[in-house]
């Protein structure tokens, strides 16, 4: 009995010492960045910042956003830092007071267009919605070059669903906000363009030859190309949709200083170079983009009315659903 309590006491002591020494602070990161990249990031950060532990929670964009809303409703978001592809949600998070403002010194070089003026969030990687093609079906010189060209492939073309994919929600906001209303989607419905759940389903189908062309994220095609799939992509002449995938600190975080350090690292030259290795276009002009890719300022983009998209999120999704699913 006595012995047991002594051991217990020793254990408790040991535990308190060990937590005191090894984990001075902890950053919990909620992210939709691919797992390998996210853990790489965390490891590199921890190497540079001894004493700070980064824990990564990685899931699909929509799942993380749902989790954040659910947690907010149930007493507080647990994450310290969030880094998601669903840029419009950050406007909603900001409106609901979930974010902690921070103007990182590393953010100075980041273009003003992709960071919040009050510093609530900062774009940390550029992912772009482009036209993916299967090179077995589409030869050089005959690629589709506009979004309307994509529709010519009928059911041999595909896109992901804005109800599931944050990036495709951004596309819908850009297309609709461009004042052509919903006409592109109405044409797509008539053409029989397939709607799949996520972008990974789309890129898989493209690689497998189920589709000849598709609307897809650039870095996914880059990744597939590396593993030998017969795929490539085209920058649409009427503009790609670029998603800045912002990073932000959650209000009420108990580790604000460590979180700030993590945000700094994400936007730093070193952090952005990590992204480049995985085919992602950096947000800093002083970091060279992946081989064969343009710098962020050279991309022709369709402007995205993010604030409007955040305010009308439900209507946009409902309208898409009515046009494409019913």
């Amino acid at each position: 009995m006595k012995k047991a309590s002594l051991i217990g006491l020793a254990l408790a002591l040991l535990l308190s010492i060990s937590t005191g020494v090894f984990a001075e602070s902890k950053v919990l990161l909620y992210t939709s960045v691919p797992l390998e990249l996210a853990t790489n990031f965390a490891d590199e950060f921890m190497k540079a910042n001894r004493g700070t532990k980064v824990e990564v929670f990685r899931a699909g964009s929509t799942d993380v956003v749902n989790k954040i809303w659910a947690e907010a409703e149930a007493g507080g978001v647990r994450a310290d830092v969030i880094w998601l592809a669903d840029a419009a949600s950050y406007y909603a998070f900001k409106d609901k007071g979930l974010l902690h403002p921070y103007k990182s010194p590393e953010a100075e070089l980041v273009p003003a267009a992709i960071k919040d003026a009050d510093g609530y969030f900062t774009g940390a990687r550029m992912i772009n919605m482009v036209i993916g093609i299967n090179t077995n079906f589409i030869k050089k010189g005959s690629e589709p070059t506009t979004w309307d060209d994509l529709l010519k492939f009928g059911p041999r073309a595909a896109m992901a669903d804005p109800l599931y994919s944050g990036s495709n929600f951004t596309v819908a906001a850009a297309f609709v906000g461009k004042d052509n209303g919903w006409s592109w989607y109405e044409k797509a419905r008539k053409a029989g363009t397939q709607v799949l759940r996520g972008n990974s389903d789309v890129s898989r189908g493209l690689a497998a030859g189920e589709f000849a062309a598709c609307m897809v994220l650039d870095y996914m095609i880059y990744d597939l190309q590396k593993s030998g799939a017969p795929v490539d992509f085209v920058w649409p002449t009427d503009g790609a949709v670029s998603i800045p995938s912002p990073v932000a600190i959650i209000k009420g975080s108990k580790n604000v200083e460590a979180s700030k350090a993590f945000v700094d690292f994400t936007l730093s030259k070193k952090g952005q170079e990590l992204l480049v290795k995985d085919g992602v276009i950096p947000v800093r002009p002083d970091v060279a983009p992946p081989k064969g890719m343009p710098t962020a300022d050279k991309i022709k983009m369709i402007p995205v009315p993010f604030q409007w998209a955040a305010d009308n999120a439900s209507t946009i999704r409902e309208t898409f659903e009515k046009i494409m699913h019913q």
Partner: protein
Amino acid sequence: MNPDTAITRRSIDVRYVFMAIVGLFFLAVIVYPLSLVMIKSFSSEAGFTLENYAKIFSQDANIRALWNSVWVSCLSTLICVAAGTILAMLIVRTDIPYKSWLRMLLLLPYGIPPFIGAMAWAQLFGPVGYASKLYMSITGAMFAPWNIYSAAGVVLVLAVYQFPVVFITVSGALGRIDTSLEEAARMSGAGPFRTLIDVTLPLITPAITASALLAFVGCISNFGIPALLGFRARFFVLTTRIYSALSIPDMPLATAMAILLAIISGIPLILERRLERGKSKYTVIAGKSVRPQTMSFGGWRIPVFILVVLVALFAGVVPLLSMLLTSFLKYWGAPLELANMTSSHYKYILNLPMVTRAFRNSVFLAVSAATITMAVGALVSYMSVRAKIKGARTLDFIGTIPYAVPCTMVAIAMILAWSRPPVVLYGTIWVILAAYLVRYMPFSIRTTNATLQQVHVSLEEAARVSGAGWTQTMRDIVMPLIRPGLVAGWILVFMPALRELTMSVLLWSQGAETMGVVIYNMQDAGYTQIAAALSTLVLLVILAGNAVVRKLSKGEISI
């Protein structure tokens, strides 16, 4: 006062204590979280409202989805009840060879996550699937005559996934029935077929109904399969509509649809209870340890064997092979050539600390969930089926309700209930366990009910007359009799829990990953090959575990 009533009274006291404990447990674990969802479905910014329910029926798409859910689930259930019952009879009660192997092959699909299975089916029968390509190259046709992305595809794959539920339950029941009744029928001149229809079938009817019910509710609340296979065909069911409502986000509408789904699943539950009421006369005194007699097929033995093998190949082996192939591919859909094969995915996952952690977590969760739900389920069943204590039927009903609630809603209920003080489980592994307990309680209650219904009360009465107390009767008489059924139920919970996804994906936190979550994340990020490799590992663990248990129990316990 004679000693007999004294015994009865004492035993009743013990039972009520147990009942109170189970009642409190259900109140905290099931009723409280789910009622929060219920409240949400009646709420709007302004307070109480019925408008969420009105909204469901004001949209044609919802009504269509409702109808789709019903007919798809009915059809799938019919298929898997027919196939499950026939195959269970063939394997338990006939002399076809290699039974235990066949049994294992047939149960294989149950061990992999449905969405991975659906992927495997898509890779076989999709527009550019292996089988489709083979067909096109043989016939020279431009398209294969089938399309897995369709309502028919949803029905077929759902049936394949729910079939093990029927098979496990019915073969468990067949293993327990008293063969002397069949012998009596045979001696009275009934032929083997007549005996089967008039004697055997009525004896296993409770098990068939119970499993049909589980299968139906399993189909109607499944999300992964209609999401993957129905989505492209614009074929929506209630669960996929709920997901849409959650993403819009329209939480009150989503909760209202979830409640509607629960009501639809509740109808067959109520019907089953009605049917059960008049059927107590079919219980059997199966006290002695019976080795069921096998029926001989004579010359038909080999043809029947081949038929069963074909079914097993189609339902289990071929999709799994397709999954195994995928796990070695450099990218999904790569042509099947040696140059496109790699073992790097396995190397990658075996070096990922998250995978080891997830394996440990999943095994812990699955074992705990299976053990706790079976213990509670056995108690509830005993109280309601055997002791017929007032209120026990209500507990039975409460425990069965969660199965009708879509997993996503169970997860949301957990978040609503367990992330605020005084009890904060959210953010730890315990909230996932709480969700599993809610979700799998019906499995255990339904299977233990079916098991107990087969054991006649006279054996217990005999024990009590001989002076045994309630606890002793339970330990020495009831438990040994229902053990095969309990084991079957345990497996029925353990296997899906080991690879559970829908709830874990909303509830997991860093450090509390489950296998399902890791697999899903890989799949979601586009690494289908890695997801397939992980699923293969989960399956290997199940097979290895099965081999060990089998060895230890000398062949008595296995899947």
